[in-house]
């Protein structure tokens, strides 16, 4: 019949060995269960995804016409600043931390994270960050309007003259978010190093765990730089120091170094877990082992290392000397080597498999295709002469939205669908999932592809008004944006209805290999009654060998 022995746990007469953990009230409490915290992160960040999305709709509405006519310029500037900030600090980061929280202990055979209390504290800082950010809309002068980079001197200008202003609140919120991320990083690295089940050597860890490990190491070395930069900017703004204020002898370009020394690696903190999600999903729905497992695992670490020495590619034209521009061009281009290795490995995994295009697989495939596109525009941007032309234009905006929407957000959706049965104990509706996929895929391309010709023609980012010749592509982009807005409706509908009254999910609906699929759906508190003993490599599709010595009943 089948050559996957652990499939035995699919038997319908099997009873869940635990009650499903807690009731809905638990999700609003200070729980220390990593699974509850994981879902708390996911739901909170999805709420902010919608908030950031509303800001995006306002911007796309403004850009339907060349004139600045929908909102005041200050409002537009507040919108793009808060859109970028919310999407990064309150959607991508926390949602990925949510998945890492939920999955890492399960995947390595642990009962929880190393420091459950620290974990809960780190989570509860996220709503605090959100409240401060949103609160800044209601103070005199409104929210920060200097972009998510907050480059001085613009970020130091403070037209209200008040001590409490949008920029100060913004810096405060970003600093709190940094502290929360550092707590998370310490926790993840410790958990992964110390709490793996017996037999799970580093080269038996699922690739999602490798990816989280690499990403969290980046957090540890990068965040101190951002935090230092943010604190100095805060001091300049409130205490009259002059680190970055040129009017008082400071050096504004120095801030850019602090900022990008962290914020470039930060994009890899975001993408690495998505790479991990792809590596989990492709083998399951292709029924093949992951091609080149070890190389893919090591390439995550390589990416983490190289990403630490490329930050100046955001500053080619910031008065950077020519030799520095050229050195950073070379390092930046080298990031594409370990990245390319992963892409080829996924393609080879899919090749010749027995594919099932469930919603999760569709999102992962769509995400992979758009990631390849983003990588290519990334290489173009890393070439200094090209970047001299397109830096700060819509070409860059197109590039990073193909990564952040096309890849990260699509990958997150893939993960949500894939692990939804595990997390909720219910199945979702495939047909609504597919509608969601097609709306999102078409919307993403309509929205972000036109940004490339616009950027090549010279349309700048962060403008509320533009020359009339750019209108055509802007209207298309706006229509795509509104379609993307619509595309979240079938998703929300599907999730809410399925969670409440979906079909009951078996332990392993996708016949996947992995520790998380060997426990009940949803898993019991403390995950494993007996800690598993791992006896084989992950992704053993087609090999009929058991994953553990003791769990497969």
């Amino acid at each position: 019949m089948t050559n996957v022995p652990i499939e035995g746990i699919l038997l319908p007469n099997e009873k869940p060995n635990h009650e499903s953990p807690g009731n809905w009230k638990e999700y609003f409490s200070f729980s220390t269960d990593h699974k509850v915290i994981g879902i708390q992160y996911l739901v909170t960040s999805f709420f902010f995804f919608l908030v950031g999305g509303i800001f995006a709709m306002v911007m796309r509405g403004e850009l339907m016409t060349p004139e600045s006519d929908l909102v005041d310029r200050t409002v537009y500037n507040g919108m793009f600043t808060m859109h970028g900030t919310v999407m990064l600090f309150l959607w991508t980061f926390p949602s990925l931390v949510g998945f890492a929280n939920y999955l890492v202990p399960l995947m390595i055979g642990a009962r929880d994270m190393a420091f459950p209390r620290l974990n809960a504290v780190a989570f509860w800082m996220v709503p605090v960050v959100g409240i401060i950010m949103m609160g800044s809309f209601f103070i005199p002068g409104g929210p920060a309007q200097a972009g998510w980079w907050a480059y001085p001197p613009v970020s130091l200008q403070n037209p209200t003259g008040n001590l409490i202003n949008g920029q100060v609140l913004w810096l405060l919120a970003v600093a709190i978010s940094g502290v929360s991320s550092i707590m998370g990083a310490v926790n993840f690295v410790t958990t992964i190093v110390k709490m793996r089940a017996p037999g799970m050597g580093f080269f038996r860890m699922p690739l999602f765990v490798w990816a989280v490990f690499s990403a969290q190491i980046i957090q540890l070395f990068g965040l101190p730089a951002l935090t230092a930069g943010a604190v100095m900017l805060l001091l300049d703004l409130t205490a009259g120091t002059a680190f970055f204020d040129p009017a008082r002898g400071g050096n504004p370009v120095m801030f850019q170094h602090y900022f990008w020394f962290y914020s470039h690696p930060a994009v890899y903190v975001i993408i690495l877990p998505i790479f991990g999600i792809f590596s989990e999903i492709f083998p399951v729905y292709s029924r093949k082992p992951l091609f080149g497992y070890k190389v893919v695992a090591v390439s995550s670490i390589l990416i983490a290392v190289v990403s630490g020495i490329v930050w100046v590619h955001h500053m080619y034209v910031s008065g950077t000397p020519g030799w520095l521009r050229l050195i950073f061009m070379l390092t930046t281009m080298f990031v594409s080597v370990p990245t390319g290795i992963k892409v080829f490995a996924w393609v080879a995994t899919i090749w010749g498999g027995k594919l099932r295009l469930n919603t999760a697989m569709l999102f992962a495939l769509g995400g992979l295709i758009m990631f390849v596109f983003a990588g290519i525009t990334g290489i173009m941007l890393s070439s200094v002469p090209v970047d001299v032309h397109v830096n700060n234009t819509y070409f860059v905006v197109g590039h990073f939205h193909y990564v952040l929407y096309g890849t990260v957000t699509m990958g997150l959706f893939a993960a949500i669908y894939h692990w939804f049965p595990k997390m909720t104990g219910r199945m979702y509706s495939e047909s609504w999932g597919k509608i969601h996929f097609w709306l999102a895929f078409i919307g993403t391309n309509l929205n972000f592809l036109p940004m490339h010709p616009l950027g090549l023609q010279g349309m700048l980012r962060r403008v509320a008004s533009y020359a009339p010749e750019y209108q055509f592509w802007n209207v298309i982009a706006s229509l795509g944006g509104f379609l993307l807005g619509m595309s979240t409706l079938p998703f929300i509908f599907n999730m809410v209805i399925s969670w409440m009254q979906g079909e009951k999910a078996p332990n392993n609906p996708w016949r996947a290999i992995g520790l998380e699929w060997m426990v009940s759906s949803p898993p019991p508190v403390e995950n494993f009654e007996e800690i598993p003993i791992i006896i084989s490599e992950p992704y053993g599709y087609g090999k009929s060998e058991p994953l553990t010595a003791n769990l497969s009943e």
Partner: protein
Amino acid sequence: MKIQKILNILTLLTGAIAVTVTSLWIGKQAYSWLPPQAAAESLLIDDLISFLVTLGAFIFLGVTSTLMYSVIFHRAVKDDFTDGPPIEGNIALEVVWTAIPILLVLWIAGYSYQVYEQMGIQGPSELVHLHNPLGMESAYAEAKDTPALAEPVEKIDVLAKQWVWVFHYPERDITSTELHLPSDRRIRLALKSQDVLHGFYIPAFRLKQDIIPNHAIDFEFTPIRPGKYSLTDSQYSGTYFATMQANVIVESPEDYQQWLAQTATQKPSLATNQAASEYAQTSNQSVQTGWVTVPPAAPPLVNSPG
């Protein structure tokens, strides 16, 4: 069996040829996505962009068509719950797909380096000048086959402030809010900012440089095509950032001299400024729909208000 193999190779070959031809064609299209080529540097940059687009299209089409092939032909049959072949890797393949990207990256970097050197946009103040020992010439010399050394240099000061551009021609000591440039001359700008970061960007030239307060930054290029273009601020500079634009007029050296001479006779007058007039208008509204902003600098007094 044998026929199957030949068929497979033929399919692969056809696919490869189709992908190659398509990407060559897309690479040619790239020129039409760009503004007119109004500076010598833009010729070099456009060739580089076209090259990268060709290469990128090849990789993108190669990967996506392989994926699409699998999606179409390698689908699980309805009730087949068996697994695919347990292939875990292939050392030869993995070495090849590591080596090829490394070589490609070196190629792209080498070509980009050459183009950058030829552009020479950072001017003589650039301390560590990476002059190529093989004696590469500037973009202009490259484009026009004339030696680089004898180029006359036209010096112009550029002052940026929130949210206005002022150009100063030191030779005649005149100012303008419109940037007039002689074509076929090396231009050397001294870029200065009075308040925040700004960016000097002329899309038709493909050239951009940030302007940093308390620094004068040298920036060089050679316009080659008479016409009217626009200069925009490319580094976000606050509320009226989007309005910070100026006309760029590239004209023959004779016309340019004539413009200089004529402007020198004009008394300074107040330039119109979009930021200032929008600000005045919104301040007069009875209902404020926005938040407080840094007020724009007063419109400048210039010989040629454009």
